[in-house]
């Protein structure tokens, strides 16, 4: 069997497997909305941990990320600290979000923020942020799938066919099985994604070993670095791209993906908050840390010894796949790339369709909708998002990558609002609203008009402006009600009500 036939057979089996999982998971008895929207609060440690990982890492992880390591070297590697940062951020907020969700019966993050801050505007802003995040991401994954199918098949499959095939399969299993189908397929896809990265590293080691003529892989790796000069191993002066302010702020913006609405929903679906310990330590900090700190430098930096010139940095992975892998390694890595796209699209589709169904349809159009009606609407929203993604990818093709990058910058904007719910009861509705609006404006301005001023990433500006405005406004405005704080902070801090009551009394005496 030639490589192309093997690729087609394995891809077909993989896609059929995804569809079968969708059909299997669709046979769920819905007695309350969370049975479908949150997989019955039953996602266990392996499924949830790998689903979270697979949703984070899109095909960019195998293509663009390795290429940028090749191109930029160790200043780029310095920002890998966003991986353990995500692990710690997840541990800080996931368990408490889970508890707040369960105690209050929240299904979507917009319900959590809208109810806690008693604000329809905040609820609507969260829906807008979720949609701004999901639609360009889904569009990018579908277009990317077309490109990858076309490239890996040596031009035998045209890009539109590839995009349609992946799109139809993703729609099918998310439509049928919702978050449960997305999570189970993501488990398998997470493993494929990791295998793809590991095989690329093994390939790089084998090539470096052959090139070294007995001096060793590390010595050959070192030769490739020395040939690049000092700019490859040192960060530039402050104010430039990839100087420390840029590294710091792009890492924080990237870690901010964990504060975006989709991950809040995933935390609500966990069967236990103990899962987040396993996810943070073993999956993110340890396994993904190893992938980033050990495998990626082998692939990217090692690639400098193997390939000195490329048309664009994305081509590094494709060059290694096409010219240096056996047919089976080729097929597994190719499936890893497709799995990465598939899992990212599925994760955002499942979560955002639920947000639209619950926070738009149920909240404003039909508040008396039965659980079955809500599920039907959630399924229809999957189609609406894909339709919007297709319209986006056709009508604003030139801006699609731009919008995808912008979506990342929006991620961290939710941080002050999340801290209000989980750690800082003094953050107020007015503070969060003003912070979110000013943060969004800062992101737009520092992306479209004055790109990365002072060498600080757009996401960093969004967070700085958002946080300052939020904390200043919060210190002069009305706190969330005691009842709300009792239903949230009261879960883990029994003394919080007393502290706030005493503080309020002191203020009224002073007044």
């Amino acid at each position: 069997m030639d490589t192309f036939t093997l690729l087609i057979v394995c891809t077909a089996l993989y896609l059929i497997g995804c569809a079968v999982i969708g059909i299997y998971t669709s046979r769920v008895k819905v007695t309350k909305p969370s049975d479908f929207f949150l997989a019955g609060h039953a996602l266990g440690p392996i499924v949830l941990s790998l689903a979270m990982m697979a949703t984070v890492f899109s095909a960019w992880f195998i293509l663009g990320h390795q290429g940028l390591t090749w191109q930029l070297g160790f200043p780029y590697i310095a920002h890998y600290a966003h991986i353990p940062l995500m692990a710690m951020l997840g541990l800080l907020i996931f368990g408490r979000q889970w508890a707040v969700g369960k105690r209050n019966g929240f299904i979507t993050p917009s319900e959590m923020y809208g109810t806690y801050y008693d604000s329809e505007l905040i609820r609507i802003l969260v829906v807008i942020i979720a949609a701004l995040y999901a639609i360009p991401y889904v569009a990018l994954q579908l277009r990317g799938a077309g490109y990858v199918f076309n490239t890996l098949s040596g031009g035998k499959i045209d890009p539109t066919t590839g995009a349609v095939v992946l799109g139809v399969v993703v729609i099918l299993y998310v439509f049928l099985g919702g978050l449960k189908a997305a999570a189970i397929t993501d488990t398998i896809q997470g493993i494929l994604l990791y295998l793809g990265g590991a095989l690329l590293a093994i390939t790089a080691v084998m090539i470096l070993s052959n090139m070294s003529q007995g001096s060793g892989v590390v010595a050959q790796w070192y030769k490739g670095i020395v040939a690049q000069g000092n700019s490859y191993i040192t960060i530039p002066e402050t104010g430039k791209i990839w100087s420390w302010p840029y590294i710091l702020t792009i890492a924080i913006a990237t870690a901010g993906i964990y504060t975006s609405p989709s991950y809040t929903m995933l935390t609500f679906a966990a069967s236990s908050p103990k899962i987040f310990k396993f996810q943070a330590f073993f999956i993110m900090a340890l396994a993904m840390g190893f992938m980033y700190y050990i495998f990626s430098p082998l692939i990217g930096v090692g690639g400098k010894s193997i390939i000195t010139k490329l048309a664009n940095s994305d081509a590094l992975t494709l060059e290694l796949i096409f010219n240096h892998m056996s047919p089976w390694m080729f097929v597994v890595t190719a499936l890893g790339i497709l799995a990465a796209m598939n899992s990212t699209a599925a994760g955002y589709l499942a979560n955002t369709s639920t947000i639209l169904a619950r926070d738009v349809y149920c909240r404003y159009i039909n508040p008396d909708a039965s659980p079955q009606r809500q599920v039907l609407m959630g399924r229809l929203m999957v189609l609406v998002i894909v339709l919007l993604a297709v319209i986006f990818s056709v009508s604003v093709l030139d801006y699609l990558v731009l919008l995808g990058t912008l979506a990342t910058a929006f991620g961290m904007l939710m941080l002050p609002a999340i801290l209000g719910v989980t750690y800082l009861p003094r953050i107020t509705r007015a503070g969060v609203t003003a912070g979110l609006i000013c943060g969004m404006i800062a992101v737009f301005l520092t992306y479209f008009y004055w790109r990365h001023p002072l060498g600080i990433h757009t996401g960093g500006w969004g967070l700085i402006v958002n946080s300052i405005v939020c904390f200043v406004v919060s210190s002069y405005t009305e706190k969330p009600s005691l009842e709300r704080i009792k239903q949230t902070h009261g879960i883990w801090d029994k003394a919080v009500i007393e502290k706030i009551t005493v503080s309020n009394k002191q203020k009224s005496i002073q007044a």
Partner: protein
Amino acid sequence: MLSGVPKSERWWLWAFFLWIFFSLGPGLLLANKPAFIGYFPVLYVWSLAFWVISLILTYFLGYKLTFTNISDDIEEGKEDVRREA
């Protein structure tokens, strides 16, 4: 006021900010030298060292400290979109 973080565990937050300072912030400049330790650039050795430190911090946060320990046993609320504050 940080809710539910005992004073005895606040050291972790300081350690976390120090970790950010050295692994992503201006502390990176301490390792910004065009030099190698063995076959490895100083900046890479620095990054690896702070990855290992992050593993210790993550382990402590997840498995040793109490403020991220949330009980499984929480009464389930009603899933109603019409709830009012």
